[in-house]
C-alpha cells in the first residue's frame, strides 16, 4: 500500500515535470523541470529495489548532466521560448508523433507478459539487505566485462573528441572571450579569430559604423 502510494505520487510528479520540460516558458525552467524528472525516475528505481541505479541516476543525470546544461544556458543567455513554439502545424506533428510513440511503447509493454520473469522472495530480501551493488559489480566484472572495457575505450574516445573539437588553434595574444554586462546579464563576446576558429560566419558580426569624417567625430565627442 505504502509503496503503491509512493509510486503514484512520484508518477504524478514525473509526468507533471516532464510536461514542464516541454511547456516551460524558458530554457532554464525546462532544465530545472528535467532535474525533477530525473529525480522522480531515481525514486522509481528505488521503489524497484535498484538502489545503485537510483544513486547513479542522481549523481550522473540529476546533478552532473544538468549542471553542464545549466552552464550552457547561463553562458548563452536564457531566451524566452514563447514566440518560437507557436507554429500550429509543427505542434500538431510533434504531438501526433509523440502520442504514436507512447502508444507503441505502451502496447509493447502490455504485449509482454511481465510475470514471466518473477523475482523470488529471497532475492528481494537479499536486495533489501545487501543492495544491488554487489550483484551489479559481479556481473560487470564477469559476464559483461568485455562491453564494460569497450565502454571505457568509447568514453576515452568521446573525451578526446570533445577536447579536440573545442580546442583552440588560435595564435594571437588578444583575449578570445570577453564578457560584458548588458541589461544586467553577462554576455560573452568572441573575438574575430575565435569566431573564425569556431566556425561562425563573420558577416553576422554587427560592427558599429565608424564615423566617416573628422567633423562627425568631433560632433560625437561633443555630444
Amino acid at each position, binding site marked *: 500500500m*505504502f509503496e503503491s502510494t509512493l509510486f503514484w505520487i512520484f508518477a504524478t510528479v514525473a509526468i507533471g515535470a516532464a510536461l514542464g520540460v516541454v511547456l516551460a516558458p524558458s530554457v*532554464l525552467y525546462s532544465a530545472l523541470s528535467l532535474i525533477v524528472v530525473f529525480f522522480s525516475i531515481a525514486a522509481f528505481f528505488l521503489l524497484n529495489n535498484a538502489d545503485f541505479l537510483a544513486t547513479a541516476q542522481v549523481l550522473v543525470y540529476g546533478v552532473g548532466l544538468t549542471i553542464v546544461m545549466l552552464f550552457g544556458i547561463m553562458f548563452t543567455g536564457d531566451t524566452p521560448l514563447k514566440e518560437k513554439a507557436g507554429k500550429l502545424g509543427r505542434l500538431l506533428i510533434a504531438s501526433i508523433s509523440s502520442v504514436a510513440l507512447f502508444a507503441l511503447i505502451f502496447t509493447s509493454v502490455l504485449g509482454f507478459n511481465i510475470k514471466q520473469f518473477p523475482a523470488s522472495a529471497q532475492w528481494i530480501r537479499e536486495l533489501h539487505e545487501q543492495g544491488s551493488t554487489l550483484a551489479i559489480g559481479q556481473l560487470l566484472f564477469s559476464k559483461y566485462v568485455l562491453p564494460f572495457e569497450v565502454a571505457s575505450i568509447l568514453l576515452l574516445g568521446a573525451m578526446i573528441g570533445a577536447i579536440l573539437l573545442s580546442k583552440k588553434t588560435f595564435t594571437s595574444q588578444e583575449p578570445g572571450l570577453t564578457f560584458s554586462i548588458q541589461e*544586467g546579464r553577462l554576455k560573452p563576446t568572441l573575438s574575430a579569430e575565435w569566431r573564425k576558429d569556431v566556425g561562425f560566419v563573420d558577416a553576422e558580426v554587427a560592427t558599429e559604423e565608424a564615423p566617416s569624417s573628422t567633423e562627425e567625430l568631433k560632433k560625437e565627442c561633443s555630444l
Partner: protein
Amino acid sequence: MNATASFEIPTLAQLLDPSFHLMKAIELWHQLPDIVPIFLTGVVLFGMVAVMGQAAAVVMVLMERKVLSWFTQRKGPNRVGPGGMFQTIADGVKLLTKEDIMTPVMDKFLFTLAPAIFLFPVFALYAIVPFSESLIGVSLPLGLLVLFALSSISVIGLVLAGWASNNKYSLLGGMRSAAQAISYEVPLILSVIGVVLFTGSGNLKTIIEAQSGGVLHWYGIMLTPLSFLLFYVASIAEVNRVPFDLPEAESELVSGYNTEYSGMKFATFFLAEYAGLFVLSALTVALFFGGYTSPFGGTFMQNYGVADAIVQAVKLPAIKPLLVNGEQIFWMLSKTYIFIYIAMLLRGTLPRLKPDQLMGFCWKFLIPLSLINLFMLGFAKQFSLSFLADGFAGSWVYLALAALVGIGGVGGFCHFIDRQFKAQVAARYHA
C-alpha cells in the same frame, strides 16, 4: 508481537521499574501498522536532524570566530553572554528579523528556491551519518554513494542562487562553485573507493566496525593514509572552505553567490555551509578514524565492564545501551570537532588559490594521485597483503611506497605537463 501480553496486569514492582515501561513502549511500537512507525521515525529524525544541524552550526560559527580570533591575537566575540557565548544566537535573531530584500530584476521564484535546494540535501545527510551504533537514521548498504549523491545536489542550489540574483558577481560565484564541486567530486570518490575495497561494503556502519580495533586499525593511519589526505583536501574544496573558497571570494566577488541575499535566506546559506562542514568532518572520522569507536578499540563501557558496574550500581538494566551509545556519541563528536578545528586552522593559515590554480591542482595533481593510490591499493588487495588489512604497522611500508610512487609519479607527470606547456608557450611567442 504477542497481542495477549498487553492484557496482563503488571505487578507493583514492575510498575516501579522504568525498564518495564520501556519494554511496553517498544511492544506497542511494534504493534502499530507499518506506516505509522515509518512516519513517526521520519518526523522524529527530521526534528532531531534539524535541531542537531542548527545546534552544530550555531556552535561552529562561534567556534570559528573564537578560533580565528585566537590566531590573530584578538578576543573575538565577548559581549553577549559569558565570554560571548550567545553571540551567534543574537546574530540569528538579528538575521531572522532583518528585511528580506529582493530587487525587481531578480527571478523571485528561483531566488527563494535556491537556499532551500542548498540546505535540504545537507540536512538529509545527517540521516546517514552514524553517530553511534544505534543513532543512525538509516543504515543503507550503499550509504557512502547515497551520501555523495545527496551532497552533490546542493551545487544546483548555488548555481541557481547565482543565476537568480541577476548579478554578475553572484553568477560568477555560482559558476565557480559548480565547476569546483564537479571537479573535486572525482578525487573525493576515488579516494573513498580504497576504503570500500578493503571493507567490502559501502555501509558506513560496517566500515566503522571494520576499524573498531583501535588506532592501529584506523584506515586513515594504517591502511590508506594517502586516501585520507586526498579525501580531506577534496572535502575541504567540496564545502567551499579556505583555501578553496573561490565561490565567495570577498576580494574579487564581493560575496559570491550570496551577494544579493539578506535576512533568513542568507542565514540559510550560512547554516547549510557549516552543516556541510560538520557532515564531511564526521564522514572523515567514520571512514578513516574509526568513527564512534574509541582510540583503544571498542568502547570503555563495554571493554572494561564500566557499563555493567554502573547498571548494577543504579539497578537500571535499561540504561546500558544508553551508556554505550553515549560514549560512542562522545567519541564521534570529539573526533569530528578535531577535524572541524583543523579546517578552521587551515582558514587561519592558508591564502586563497587562483581559479586556474584551483582547477590545475585538482585535475593535474589530486586526480592522478588518487588514481595511483587506488591502483596501489588494488595491488595490495589482489596480492592479499593481509598485514595491511589487519592494521599491522608494516603498512608503513605501503605508506612509504605510496609516498614514493605518488610523489615520483605525480611529480613526473607535472613536470611533463609543465614542459609541454612551456614548449607551447615558447612556440607561440616565437611564431
